[in-house]
């Protein structure tokens, strides 16, 4: 019987918390955590105490009071007797609108410029370098104000369209009015419209829009089925059937049928009184903010795309070419999928930056969440701390959502290692 004794189990002594390396790291972390929480608690307590001394008791009751002010761009119904909360929501929608428009445009522009900057054509490559260096090296606030100044100073005011022999005329077959207040484009109208659907009594959604989108998505889904079938045939026989005309027809036809059924026609803007009436009105402030943010951010995206493409070793291109793939196929099937895993993580940061930069909207009078909740509401109620806190939470929530979605996408495109 092997005599074999366990090492005597050392009993735990408090001094081991400091002198034993097994516990020391933990001890230091716990002490630091306690210190940090104490500091945080002290700051919060101190702020609350001082606010109370100043007679400013934090309260969010003001959110339910009537806002009293008007907002020029509202995606859902709003009038000045609605609550501050709804005004903040209108602002939030405006923030999201410009963020989505900005991110989409910045991505398209950025990818294009990033690829063009790698062009073997000397002139194109240099021009893109100039673009990137110009736009990313000037603060975005200046670009926003500059774009706005150009829009205001170069385009004619609506009054210039008045009279028998006006100084300015409408563009594109007399249907688009470009003024220094914004651009009016024809709006889609329906003679046999289906009316609006009230969502939880909060806002209205056009049923026409829902039907059109449904038709569009059905078409896209069907087109996808056709492509999958083409893939199967290609895998089985090596010959890929031509499918683009099917796909196009499947996407376009249902939408066209729905449009005709609804009695689609355009409503054109017309000068009435001080301003144009009718049509879709894109305000200067939105255009300036959107253009400036997307052009500025696209310069960064271009560099990220360039870096991503350069990160894929040249051997991949050569190997793909050796297999007989054409250059555009090499890019879409071999280079880009590999480049995306390098591109996506920094791209997330750019989307976040663009969204947060949209808070500079107030410089051009665009009513985003900073302009409504943290601007006019703050002023009218004097609740600086509460509105700023709420605003910070909202930006945090937006950013975390973008991050979550993009990380999900990143997980899908990243290299699967076995």
């Amino acid at each position: 019987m092997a005599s074999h004794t366990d090492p005597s189990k050392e009993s735990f002594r408090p001094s081991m918390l400091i002198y034993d390396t097994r516990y020391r790291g933990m001890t230091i972390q716990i002490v630091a955590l306690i210190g940090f929480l104490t500091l945080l608690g002290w700051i919060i307590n101190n702020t609350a105490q001082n606010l109370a001394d100043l007679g400013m008791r934090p309260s969010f009751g003001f959110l339910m009071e009537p806002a009293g002010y008007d907002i020029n761009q509202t995606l859902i119904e709003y009038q000045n007797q609605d609550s501050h909360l709804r005004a903040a929501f209108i602002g939030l929608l405006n923030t999201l609108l410009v963020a989505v428009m900005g991110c989409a445009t910045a991505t398209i522009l950025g990818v294009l410029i990033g690829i063009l900057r790698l062009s073997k054509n000397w002139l194109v490559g240099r021009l893109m370098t100039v673009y990137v260096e110009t736009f990313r090296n000037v603060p975005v606030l200046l670009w926003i104000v500059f774009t706005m100044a150009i829009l205001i100073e170069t385009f004619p005011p609506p009054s210039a369209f008045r009279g028998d022999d006006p100084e300015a005329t409408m563009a594109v077959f007399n249907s688009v009015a470009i003024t220094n207040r914004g651009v009016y484009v024809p709006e889609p109208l329906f003679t046999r419209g289906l009316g609006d659907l009230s969502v939880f009594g909060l806002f209205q959604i056009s049923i026409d829009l829902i039907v059109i989108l449904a038709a569009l998505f059905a078409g896209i889904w069907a087109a996808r089925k056709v492509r999958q079938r083409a893939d199967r045939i290609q895998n089985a026989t090596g010959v890929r059937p031509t499918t683009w005309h099917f796909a196009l027809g499947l996407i376009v036809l249902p939408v066209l049928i729905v449009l005709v059924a609804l009695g689609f026609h355009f409503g054109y803007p017309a000068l009435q009184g001080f301003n144009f009436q009718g049509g879709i009105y894109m305000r200067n402030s939105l255009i300036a903010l959107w253009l400036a943010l997307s052009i500025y951010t696209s310069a960064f995206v271009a560099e990220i795309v360039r870096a991503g493409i350069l990160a894929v070793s040249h051997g991949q291109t050569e190997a793909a070419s050796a297999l007989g793939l054409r250059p555009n196929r090499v890019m879409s099937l071999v280079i880009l999928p590999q480049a995306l895993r390098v591109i996506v993580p920094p791209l997330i940061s750019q989307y976040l930056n663009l969204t947060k930069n949209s808070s500079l909207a107030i410089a051009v009078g665009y009513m985003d969440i900073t302009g409504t909740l943290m601007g006019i509401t703050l002023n009218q109620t004097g609740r600086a701390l509460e509105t700023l806190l709420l605003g910070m939470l909202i930006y945090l929530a937006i950013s975390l959502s973008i991050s979550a979605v993009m990380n999900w996408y990143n997980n899908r495109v990243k290299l699967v290692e076995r």
Partner: protein
Amino acid sequence: MKKSLFLGTLTAAGLAAGMSAAATLDDVKARGTLNCGVTTGLVGFAAPNANGRWEGFDVAVCRAVAAAVLGDENAIEFVPTTGKTRFTALASGEIDMLARNTTWTFSRDVDLGFEFAGINYYDGQGFMVPKELGVTSAKELNGATVCIQTGTTTELNLADWFRKNNMEYEPVPIETNAEAQQQYLARACDVYTTDSSGLAATRATFEDPSAHVILPEIISKEPLGPLVRHGDNQWGDIVRWTLNALIAAEEFGITSANVEELASEPTDSPEINRMLGTEGNLGEMLGLDKDWAVRAIAAGGNYGEIFARHIGESTPVGLARGLNAQWTEGGLLYAPPFR
């Protein structure tokens, strides 16, 4: 904004650590300068001149208070504040008083915890339009695009007025007066609205002021005045009575030219004597010396002189006295008695 809030919180923390509230007077004396919040620049009311010296109608109130308290009208630290930052700056103690054409409203007085020390300008919100538009009344502005300086009571007045008159408008909110001017002059908005004194001040800076008209409608009451924090009544009294002294001085005919002479020996008028310290001890009651009012008046003259020099009819701003005349001349200025 965030920075000033943070600094404000720090300042507030520092203040609370050192002492309980109150005693702004002691702070100011110990510091040797008065921290006075003003606008970021509105010609006639508060703007630095060519030499960088702050001048204007609101600035004059600051100078009078500094002269009364510290004996030096230049011992002031001017803190430019925007419509957004002004209340935080005052509440946090960053500034001792705010003289920034701020409208006295119930909620600012009661809910935000400030103390309005009086009214130095009776104003009202008006509209300015280019003359070529041919508009003669604000009632003709249905559908107009209106530039508003954001962060003021003007937004609410405007919304109320258009709602009351059942008219439509499109607001274009602008952060500062300068940006509003740019948009207005480029005709990106048809109308510019703010307090009518501000309109006049803005119009004065235009290349051709006569091409713009201020419409006759005044859509709100905007009593503008200096304000201080709640809770320090002594400091509030000093600011209030300095302003009253300036107003009373005009009524009694005391000017910057004759104030020294009138204060050198008692005059026939007991009220002048009490105000200028040759009789009684009003200065002592305020916690100041007996010459406080003499210095305040000597700094920039009485209310009428200040008005005439900065915004009166002979200046580019060109405002008539109107409601801001003495009560003896049909205006609303009425200083309570010095006794």
